[in-house]
Each structure stands twice: as C-alpha cells, then as structure tokens.
C-alpha cells in the first residue's frame, strides 16, 4: 500500500526532526559531561599536587610529611578522599588516614603525566582517581647521593555529585528532546492538514464533475502555485473528454437517425404484408422489398462501424501517400457502366503524382461515396468533372456534377444529418452510399474537410486532405 501524502509528510517532518534533536542532545550531553569531567579531573590533579608537594628525599630516604590542615578532605570521616604513595619497588610509602585497612590500586602514566580512570573506592563508592609518577624534590645534600627514585601517587575521590549532575543533564536533555518531538508531531499534523486543504477541495471539485456534464471547469484562481499546473492539465483532460463524449453522442444520434428510416420501411412493409392473407406474388414482392431495405441498412451499419472504429481509435489510421487518381478510378469503376448507359460524361483533370497523405481505406470510402453521390444526382446526358489542386500543404479535390436543381442556399445544408436530395431514391434504386454528413465526419477524421457549392445547376463538392508532397502546384489540365 502506498502511504498517503499526509502520512509521508508527517513521517519526514517528525523523523527528520527526531534525528536532528537526538544528534543535538547527544552532542550537548557529550560536551557538557566532558567539561564536567575535565573540571573534576582538574580538582583531582590539584589535590594530587597537594600530596606530591611534601614528598621529599634526603640523602638516606624518601619521606612524606603532611599536616591535616593542608588537606582536610583526606581526614574527614564521611565520604573522604583517598591517596596512596608507592616507592619504585612497590613498597607503600604513605596513605591517607581514610584508607584505614584498605588500599588503592596502583597505576600511573608516563613520568609527570597524570593518568585518570574511574575506580571503586575502598568504602565501596564510585569514584575517580589520578595516577602520577614523579621524582620527589631532593634537598641540596641528597641531590647527588641517591639516584633519583620515582614515586607513584594515586589520589581518588567520590564522584556522587558529578554523576548526579550528569544524570540531571541527561534527564533534562531527554525530556526536552521528547517534548519537542511531540510538539513537532502535533504542529506538523496541523500544518500538513492545513497545507493539503486545497487538495481536499480539488478532490471535492473533481467528485462533483458529472459524467453527463463535463463542461464544468475547475477554477484555477486562489489555487496554490504548485497545484495550478495539475488543475490546468485536468481541465484540458476534461475538455478533451467532453469533446469525445459529444462526438460519441452525435455519432450515436447519427447512427440511430440513419437507421430509423430503413427500419420504418422494413416495419411498414412487413406489417402490411402480414395484415391479411395474400397471394404468393404479394409475399414475394414484400420479401424482395424487405431484402432491399436490409441491404441498405447493412450498408449504413457497416459504414457507421468503420467510422466508429476509426473515431474510437480501435483501428489505427495509417496515413500513407495515396494517389488520388487511384482512388477516383477505384471509386468510379462500379458506377461507370450505369453512368455510361445514362449518357453521363466523366472527366478527370488530374496530373500524375497528385497524392494525399491519408488512410487508404477511409479516403477510398470518402471518394467512393462522393462519386456515387455525383453519379446518382447527375441528370441524364449530364457531366461529372473531377479536378485537383494543391493549396499549401493540402490537396483539394473537386467533384462537380450537372443537373442540380438546388439553390446555393441549399449547399450549406447538404452536410446536415437529415438533409437528403436524392431523386434517384424516389425511383427503384435504394441509396446505399455514405451520407454527406458521414463523409464530412470521415474527412475530419483524416484531418481534412469537405465543402459544397451550387452554381448554375452544377453541384460541386470540395474535399481537402493533407498533401503527400506539399508545395507542389499542379494546374488542372483541361
């Protein structure tokens, strides 16, 4: 499971804080306890100088004499200090009265360099001792008589008050660190909650976006700077989603409407046929009629499916350089015989290498639909003219047919979903082609467009598609 941002922030803040505080406490503790110990050792060393001072040697021996008043700490009965002196051969020279029957452990560092160590005092208390190796002061006559003999001195003192002070410091530091940590945790929680409040607000806004109304945008004003880009992208996404949904709805409506008319035909024909007993021929006629309608419907459904697949991205468009002449030839082939029998002239004015950059299947579908439309609307002995030219990075293919009885104002309606101007359908033929509304949709899918104009009985459809070889101007050949 992934941790929430809130938990992660809190963890980082308090974890970091805890580590910092602990390091700080350890350092403070170390410095303080060291300096206390140093102070203690200094006193201990001073005390040892008081002892080492009176150690003298004369010509015969090393002697030690001390008055109780010079160092009363060694004489008191309660928690006294201790000292002991040894000659080089290990013989005890002297000891503090407080030693009574006990003794100290002998240790020392290099000559005249004091060594310190914690010890257990003869009365059982914890203490600290300094060991000192030194050559006693000699009087004038003894100076050259006796070789210089080293004396070892160990002075020990109880550390009860030092330990108490260090414990107090430890306790204070631990309490301060713990308390600060708890406070940091609380403050961190509040800060994180307040800091993340815009996120909660954003979540509420997103939750309020309804599937049937994606037009609502999330306002970016008063949004923290860190979140503005996220909200911006989210709004973009919403806009794209809304577009997609709108296209989807329009497409469904297109499909439903396109299918309504043939369905009505099918239903009517079947209902009339079954309304009363009829002759064999009547039934056969009705069945033939229904089959025609089914073929028509199938054509519509297949076209819609192809378009739906392209629009939903189920089938990837594969743009390639497509020779428009090939599209025209393939689209015209199935129409040629019927057109010739009606005396229709078919003229193409396209140069070689007139290519568009488009998916072959979809562009073929569009061109075939436009040609089939033209062939059906052209009057007997009329004319269909195909021309093409390059405009910037696009190619424009125009398909013009004579015999149009519509006015130019009708031209803007030809792409409307229901607009139909199909006299051929009033005859026996059933139009199975792609409606112009769907042609427009398909052209847009390819990144192109279609337009229509009507002048002097000529209906002209212009199809614009991205060019395969931009910036080559090709003049139509008349």
């Amino acid at each position, binding site marked *: 499971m992934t941790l929430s941002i809130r938990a992660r922030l809190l963890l980082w803040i308090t974890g970091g804080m805890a580590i910092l505080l602990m390091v700080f406490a350890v350092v403070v503790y170390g410095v303080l306890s060291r300096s206390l110990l140093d102070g203690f050792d200094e006193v201990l060393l001073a005390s040892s100088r008081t002892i080492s001072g009176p150690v003298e040697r004369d010509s015969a021996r090393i002697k030690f004499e001390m008055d109780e008043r010079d160092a009363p700490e060694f004489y008191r009965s309660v928690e006294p200090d201790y000292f002991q002196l040894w000659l080089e051969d290990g013989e005890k020279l002297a000891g503090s009265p407080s030693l009574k029957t006990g003794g100290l452990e002998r240790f020392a560092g290099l000559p005249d360099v004091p060594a310190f160590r914690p010890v257990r005092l003869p009365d059982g208390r914890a203490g600290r001792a300094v060991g000192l190796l030194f050559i006693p002061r000699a009087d004038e006559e003894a100076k050259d008589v006796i070789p210089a003999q080293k004396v070892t001195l160990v002075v020990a003192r109880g550390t009860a008050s030092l330990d108490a002070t260090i414990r107090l410091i430890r306790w204070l530091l631990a309490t301060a660190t713990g308390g600060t940590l708890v406070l940091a945790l609380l403050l961190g929680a509040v800060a994180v909650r307040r800091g993340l409040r815009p996120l909660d607000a954003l979540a509420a806004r997103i939750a309020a976006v309804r599937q049937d109304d994606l037009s609502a945008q999330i306002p970016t004003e008063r949004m923290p700077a860190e979140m503005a880009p996220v909200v911006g992208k989210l709004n973009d996404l919403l806009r794209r989603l809304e577009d997609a949904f709108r296209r989807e709805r329009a497409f469904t409506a297109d499909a439903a*409407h396109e299918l*309504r*008319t*043939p*369905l*009505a*035909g*099918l*239903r*009517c*024909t079947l*209902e*009339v046929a079954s*309304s*009363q007993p009829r002759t064999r021929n009547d039934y056969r006629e009705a069945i033939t*009629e*229904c089959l*025609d*309608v089914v073929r028509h419907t199938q054509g519509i459904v297949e076209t819609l499916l192809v378009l739906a697949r392209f629009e939903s991205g189920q089938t990837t468009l594969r743009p390639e350089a497509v020779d428009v002449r090939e599209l025209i030839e393939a689209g015209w082939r199935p129409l040629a015989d019927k057109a010739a029998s009606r005396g229709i002239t078919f003229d193409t004015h396209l140069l070689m290498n007139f290519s568009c950059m488009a998916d072959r299947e979809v562009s073929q579908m569009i061109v075939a639909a436009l040609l089939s439309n033209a062939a059906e609307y052209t009057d007997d002995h009329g004319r269909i003219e195909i021309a093409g030219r390059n405009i910037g990075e696009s190619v424009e293919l125009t398909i013009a047919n004579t015999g149009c*009885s519509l006015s130019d104002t009708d031209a803007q309606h030809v792409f409307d979903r*229901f*607009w*139909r*101007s*199909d*006299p051929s*359908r*009033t*005859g*026996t033929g*059933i139009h199975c082609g792609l409606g112009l509304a769907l042609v427009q949709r398909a052209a847009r899918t390819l990144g192109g467009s279609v337009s229509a104009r009507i002048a002097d009985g000529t209906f002209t459809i212009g199809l614009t598609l991205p060019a395969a070889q931009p910036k080559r101007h090709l003049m139509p050949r008349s």
Partner: protein
Amino acid sequence: MRVLVVEDYPPIRKAVAKGLREAGFAVDATGDGEEGLWYATSNDYDVVVLDLMLPGLDGLTILNRLRAEGRAAHVLILTAKDAVSDRVKGLDLGADDYLVKPFALEELLARVRALARRAYCVKNPCLEIGDLRIETAAQRVWRGLEEVHLTAREYALLEYLAMRRGEVVSRTDIWEHVYEFNSEADSNVVDVYIGYLRKKIEQPHKPPLIRTLRGRGYSLGASG
C-alpha cells in the same frame, strides 16, 4: 376519404400507401416535394401524410404553402426527427399530428382515421344513420342486426357519405374524396357504385337511405 402520402423512401411510401388503401382510403403517393405540393394544392385531400426530408421541397415548406393557400387538409407529419423542438416547429406551422419513424402501421392508420373524422367534425368512430351502423375502425357495416358486406370502394363511398350525413354531396366531391388520382376518369363510375351500394344497404319496406337529388348529387340518411 382521400389521403396524400408524400414520402421519399420507397419502401415506406409503398407500404403506407398499400396499408391505407386496404384500410379503405383513396391514396395518392409521391416521393418528390414539388410534386407533393402540386398534388396537395390541386386536390381536396382529407389527410396529407407528409415526410419532412424530401427532395425538391422539404415537408415544412409544403406545409407552409398549404396553410398559406388556406388548404384545410389535415396534415400528419412523418419523420425520423424526434426532438421536441422539431415536433413543436411542425405543429406550430399548422400540422395536426406528428409520428416518429419507425412507427406501427396500425397507429398510423388510427391517426389518419382520427384526422379524417376530424375533417368532418365527427368524433364518434361509430356512425349511426337510422338503423344503419358503420364501425369505421373495423370497417364493418350493419343494417339493423344484419351485417352488410361491402367492397373496399363501396365502403369508402358509404363512409364518405356518412361523414357528410344530411348534406347534399356532389358527384365531384365524391370523385375527389373516394377515388385516387390515377383512377379511370369516368364520372359514371360514381353512379354505378351508388347503385351497388343501394343494392346492399337498402331494404324493402324501409324508407331509402341514399337519396338522389337530380342535378345536385346524393344525400345519405336524415330525412325520410
């Protein structure tokens, strides 16, 4: 009752025309808007079944022109457009009813019958003249307790006369409302069918139901 069907999709046009004919209506049908307008303005139809999307001239324009010319024919709009705004627009332009494709033929027939009755201010689908009873929905006729079996044309003639009971109905009126545009142009045919009808519905020892008013036409029922 005479009905004009203007619908450009051949399967619907053919089936609706056939269904209406079999329901006793005289039906003219066309798939072209211009032709539809010409039909509607040159004949006195009881009901016009009008598609909205038509080649040549769209349905709403035809409706507009009909109303502008003061034509009283009841118009039933038949279309794939089902948005409320489309229906409101059609009804506001003077349409009397609206049916969205695909529809049940039965419903279309019932609506056309209702519109036809309305054309003659008749609300009861069961017409009674003396002991003659006509059930327009089932197209059945009784004289007293005895059912009278009529051909489609005879029934259409009787129903038209019954809708205009008590009025003098001219041969031309009968011709225009009972016969289709493509019928054989013989005015005698009206007299012949009146003769057939009389044979089937008149009974001896009862006053005649159909009276001939010389030079003016025919009248059904009312006075004895």
